[in-house]
C-alpha cells in the first residue's frame, strides 16, 4: 500500500471571465478552494465548472497531455492544464493563482480562444511530408535511428499553441509565423523522406514572417510543455538557410555573417563596422543615434578598435573550423 499522504491547502484563484456574446469587457472572478496535492490544473477548471459556475468554459479532451486543447496561462506562464500539478504551481507561485486564456485578445469565452491565426500560420509552412511516392512501392522507405534523431523531437508537437501565444513577436506582428510553425517547418525539413527541397526554406527566409524576426527571447522554449525547444529549431533553420544557399544578402543574414568577419579580423566584434556591413548605405538612418552615442563616449573609432590577445590563435581556428559559406 502506498504511504503517500494526500495533503490539502487553501488557494485563491483569480479567474478571467469573458463572454464575447454579452460582455463588453472581461472581468475576473475570485474563487477560493482547498486544493489537494493530487490535483492538476485541469481539476480546478473542472471544479469551477461542475461545482461553482456551470457557465464557465474551457477546452479539454484527452486529459493525457496529447491533444493540446487545455493550454491556458497560469500566472502568465503557459500551462498544459491536464499535465501540470497544482502542487508544483503553488511551489512556484504561492497561493495566489491567476488563470487566464493563452491570449486575452483572442478570448471568445473564458479560457477558450480563437486559434485561427495559429492554424493559418501552421498551414502556411506546408506541414506535411512532400514526397513523390510510387503508388505501389516495392519497399518501405527506411529511416535509420540516426536520421530520425535529426528531427530532434520536433515531431512531438501537440499544437497546443503555448509557445505561439507566449511569443512577443506574434503579439505585435500579425505576419510572423511564430515558434510552433517554425518547429513544424523544421520537422519536415529535417526529415530525410521529404523532397520539398528549398521551397519550405524560402518561406522561412521571408522578411517579417520568417526566422529573422525572432527576437531570441526563449519564451517559446520556456512555454513548451513537450520540451520541443522551438527556438532551438529556429536556430537550425537559420543554419539550413545558409547551408542550402537560400539565405540571400539581407540586413539580417549579413548581420550574422558579419560576426564571423569581425572575429576573424579582431577577435572581438567591431560594432561600428558590423552595422555598416549589415545595413550597407542604409546606415545613414543610424547617424542621429550614433552621434548621440559618440558624444557620450560610446563609439570606438577604428584606430582605437580593441583586439583580442593571441589573435593568431583565433584566426587559425576561424580558418580551420569554419563550416559555413555565404
Amino acid at each position, binding site marked *: 500500500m502506498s504511504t503517500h499522504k494526500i495533503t490539502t491547502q487553501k488557494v485563491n484563484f483569480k479567474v478571467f471571465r469573458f463572454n464575447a456574446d454579452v460582455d463588453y469587457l472581461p472581468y475576473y472572478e475570485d474563487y477560493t478552494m482547498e486544493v489537494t496535492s493530487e490535483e492538476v490544473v485541469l481539476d480546478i477548471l473542472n471544479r469551477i465548472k461542475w461545482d461553482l459556475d456551470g457557465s464557465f468554459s474551457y477546452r479539454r479532451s484527452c486529459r493525457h497531455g496529447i491533444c493540446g486543447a487545455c493550454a491556458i496561462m497560469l500566472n502568465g506562464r503557459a500551462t498544459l492544464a491536464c499535465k501540470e500539478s497544482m502542487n508544483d504551481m503553488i511551489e512556484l507561485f504561492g497561493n495566489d493563482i491567476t488563470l487566464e486564456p493563452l491570449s486575452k485578445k483572442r478570448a471568445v469565452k473564458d479560457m477558450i480562444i480563437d486559434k485561427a491565426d495559429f492554424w493559418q500560420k501552421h498551414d502556411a509552412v506546408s506541414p506535411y511530408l512532400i514526397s513523390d511516392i510510387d503508388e505501389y512501392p516495392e519497399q518501405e522507405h527506411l529511416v535509420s535511428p540516426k536520421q530520425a534523431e535529426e528531427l530532434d523531437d520536433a515531431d512531438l508537437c501537440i499544437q497546443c499553441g503555448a509557445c505561439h501565444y507566449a511569443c512577443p513577436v506574434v503579439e505585435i506582428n500579425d505576419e510572423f509565423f511564430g515558434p510552433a510553425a517554425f518547429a513544424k517547418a523544421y520537422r519536415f525539413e529535417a526529415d530525410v523522406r521529404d523532397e520539398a527541397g528549398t521551397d519550405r526554406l524560402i518561406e522561412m527566409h521571408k522578411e517579417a514572417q520568417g526566422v529573422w524576426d525572432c*527576437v531570441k527571447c526563449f519564451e517559446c*522554449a520556456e512555454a513548451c510543455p513537450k520540451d520541443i525547444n522551438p527556438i532551438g529549431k529556429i536556430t537550425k533553420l537559420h543554419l539550413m538557410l545558409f547551408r542550402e544557399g537560400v539565405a540571400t544578402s539581407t540586413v539580417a543574414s549579413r548581420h550574422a555573417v558579419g560576426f564571423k568577419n569581425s572575429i576573424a579580423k579582431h577577435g572581438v*566584434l567591431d560594432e561600428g563596422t558590423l552595422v555598416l556591413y549589415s545595413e550597407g548605405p542604409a546606415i545613414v538612418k543610424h547617424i542621429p543615434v550614433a552621434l548621440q552615442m559618440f558624444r557620450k*563616449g560610446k563609439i*570606438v573609432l577604428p584606430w582605437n578598435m580593441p583586439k*583580442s590577445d593571441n589573435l593568431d590563435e583565433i584566426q587559425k581556428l576561424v580558418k580551420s*573550423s569554419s563550416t*559555413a559559406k555565404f
Partner: protein
Amino acid sequence: MKKLKYALFTGCTAKQSTPEQMMSTLAVAKKLNIELIELTEASCCGASHLQDYDDFLSLVLNARNIAYAEKHGLTMVTICNTCQLNTAMTKHRLDNNAELKAKVNEKLAEVGLEYKGTSNVIHFLYAIIDDIGLDKIKEMVVTPLSQFNIAPFYGCHNIRPSELQNESHNSKENPYNPTSLDDLIIACGGMTVDYNEKNKCCGFHVELQAPKTGAILSGNAIAGAMDGNADWMVTPCPLCHLKLDTQTKHSSEAIGREVKLPILHMQQMLGLALGCPSDELGLKHHVSKVNFI
C-alpha cells in the same frame, strides 16, 4: 571577508559601446574585495548571431574562451546576459556530448589548448548573490537608495532557458517571477517596481532587421516601468541597456508615447549604494541622462 577571484569575460560591448559597464564592474569589484583576472585572449561569443551562421565555429571559439578560464583554474564571470547564454550553452553542450567535445578539442589542440569542462560560467549578478550574499551586501551599503523607486529589467538570456541558467548558480530563478534583481535593489535600500515587462524581451537582437518590433518591445518596457512610478530602471545586461538607453526616440514613436528613463547597469546601482565615487561608475556615458545625482 575572504577575497574572491574570478576570470572576467568582458564581452565586446563593455569595451566599446558601454564603457560605463566595464568601469562600474571594476569599481564594484574593488569595493567587494573581488579580484578579476581579465581574459584578454577571449574572442566574441557570437552573440547568438554567429550561432545562426556557423554553429561549429561558435562552439570552438566559446570553448577556447572557457579554456582560458580553466587555465587560470577560475570560475568565469560574464557581465552580459547574451555572453552568459552563449558561453553557458557551449559548456552545456560539450559537457553532455563527448563526441562533440572531442571534435572541438581536436580543433583547440591546433593552438595548444584543451577544453576540459572544469570552470563554471556564471553571470556577475549571480556570482555576487551566491558567493557574497545579499545579507553581506546589505551590511556593506553606505548610501541606501531609499528615495528611489527602481524598476528591475532582467533581460531574457539571464532567466531563459531556465534549465540552463539554473545550472550555473545556486540562487534558482523562476523566469515567470524572477527575484534576484529585486532582491539586490532591496539590499541596496531601494524600492522595487513590479511591472509586467520586467521579465520580457527588450528587442535588441532584431534592432537592425526588424526595428519596429524592437522599438515596440523596448517602448513597452520603459512605459511599464514609468507607469509603475519608477525613477529609473536597472539591468544586468549591457545589450538591454543599449536598447533602452539609446533608442528612446524610436521607442517613443513606435508606441505613440514619450518614453524615457535613466537606465542603470546593475553594477552602477550597486556601486552607488556601496559608495563608489560616481566618476568611477561612468554615469556620464548614458544617452538618457542620469539626472538624480
